[in-house]
């Protein structure tokens, strides 16, 4: 695999993940359990869609085929998307959304911390910009995991169920393939094996404070690195892409 192709695909992977989970959060707009959380989730969504734009813009530049960030977001099909399975899972209840966000934010913070050191200047700049936002998101999602886990019997049971439902998507965050191999050699990509233990430690600490039990012997789902997704992504893309696909080039 050529370097250019590897960088393009690497950026798409992280652009897709941020865009998809950002879109999921935006589905809460107007449906949040309280006004403050409605605003919080849409604010986080904005940051994530913004981060994805930075990655898409850079990917488009690297590809050099006159595709724009919008083309990459709106005109690729499910099998071309490389977001991790975790990010496309449905919102469920508020606790489920916070648990998904917590597992994701915990990854993003450690990932960006390492990506800051990337020899690729553009990716390093995106990491420096994004990490401050992701740390803030993590503070928010951690607080809710703790509050709901260590809350009432009902909230505890529900978020424990969410954890058990989502845990099987956690391994995949750290999967690497040929793209990583090519880029790690040149100090461009993050060696995800170096942040996995740290992630686990951080997550386990918060879950302990939340009085939640870390699932054991869970079957781990995989596939997104090859574009094999759960059934949920197709529906999400159908909604997200319908306008630009129905009215190509539409502007307002």
């Amino acid at each position, binding site marked *: 695999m050529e370097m250019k192709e590897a960088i393009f695909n690497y950026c798409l992977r992280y652009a897709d993940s941020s865009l998809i989970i950002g879109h999921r959060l935006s589905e809460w707009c107007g449906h949040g359990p309280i006004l403050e959380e409605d605003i919080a989730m849409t604010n986080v969504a*904005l940051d994530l869609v*913004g981060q994805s734009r930075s990655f898409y813009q850079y990917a488009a530049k690297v590809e050099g085929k006159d595709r724009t960030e919008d083309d990459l977001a709106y005109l690729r099909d499910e099998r071309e998307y490389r977001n991790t399975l975790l990010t496309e899972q449905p919102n469920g209840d508020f606790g489920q959304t916070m648990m998904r966000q917590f597992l994701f934010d915990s990854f993003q913070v450690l990932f960006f911390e390492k990506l800051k050191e990337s020899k690729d*200047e553009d990716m390093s700049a995106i990491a*420096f910009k994004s990490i*401050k936002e992701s740390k803030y998101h993590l503070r928010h999602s951690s607080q809710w995991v703790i509050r709901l886990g260590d809350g009432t019997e009902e909230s505890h049971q529900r978020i424990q169920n969410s954890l058990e439902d989502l845990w099987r998507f956690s391994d995949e965050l750290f999967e690497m393939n040929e793209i990583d191999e090519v880029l790690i050699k040149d100090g461009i990509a993050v060696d995800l094996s170096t942040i996995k233990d740290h992630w686990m430690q951080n997550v386990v600490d918060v879950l302990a404070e939340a009085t939640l039990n870390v699932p054991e012997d869970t079957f781990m789902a995989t596939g997104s690195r090859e574009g094999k997704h759960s059934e949920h992504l197709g529906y999400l893309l159908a909604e997200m892409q319908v306008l630009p696909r129905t009215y190509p080039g539409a502007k307002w």
Partner: protein
Amino acid sequence: MVTFLSKDQIWNYLSEIPDPEIPAINIIELGVVRDVKVDDAQVEVIITPTYSGCPAMKMIEDNIYLHLKSKNIDNVKVTTILSPAWTTDWITEEAKEKLNKYGIAPPQKEIACPQCASQNVECISQFGSTPCKAQYRCKDCREPFDYFKCH
């Protein structure tokens, strides 16, 4: 295109453009304008976003074009850079004072109510009406207020 424009003039013009969300301060005071380059052919304004997803950035870019055009400067290019990443440390002291007067507690370690200056405050929500703000309440005068987050 007028060729005798100085950088200082451009900076002055840019300081006339208010932040679209918080019109009490201008885009220079906000710290988003990082550099201005002037040569015979064009004026280049280099800006950096506050937050990755801040919806005001497009508006700021458009307003730079419009305002400079109104000064008969047509050949303008606005370039967005990400590095170094924007920080609230770049907001000037004067601008922090303006924010406070406007009712927004400026970014600082000891958050104080912009109405009564009490530091007996509580966070209602980490997030607010724009990406750069959080919601607080003063426990003395009971007024809710926006806080410009340290970033």
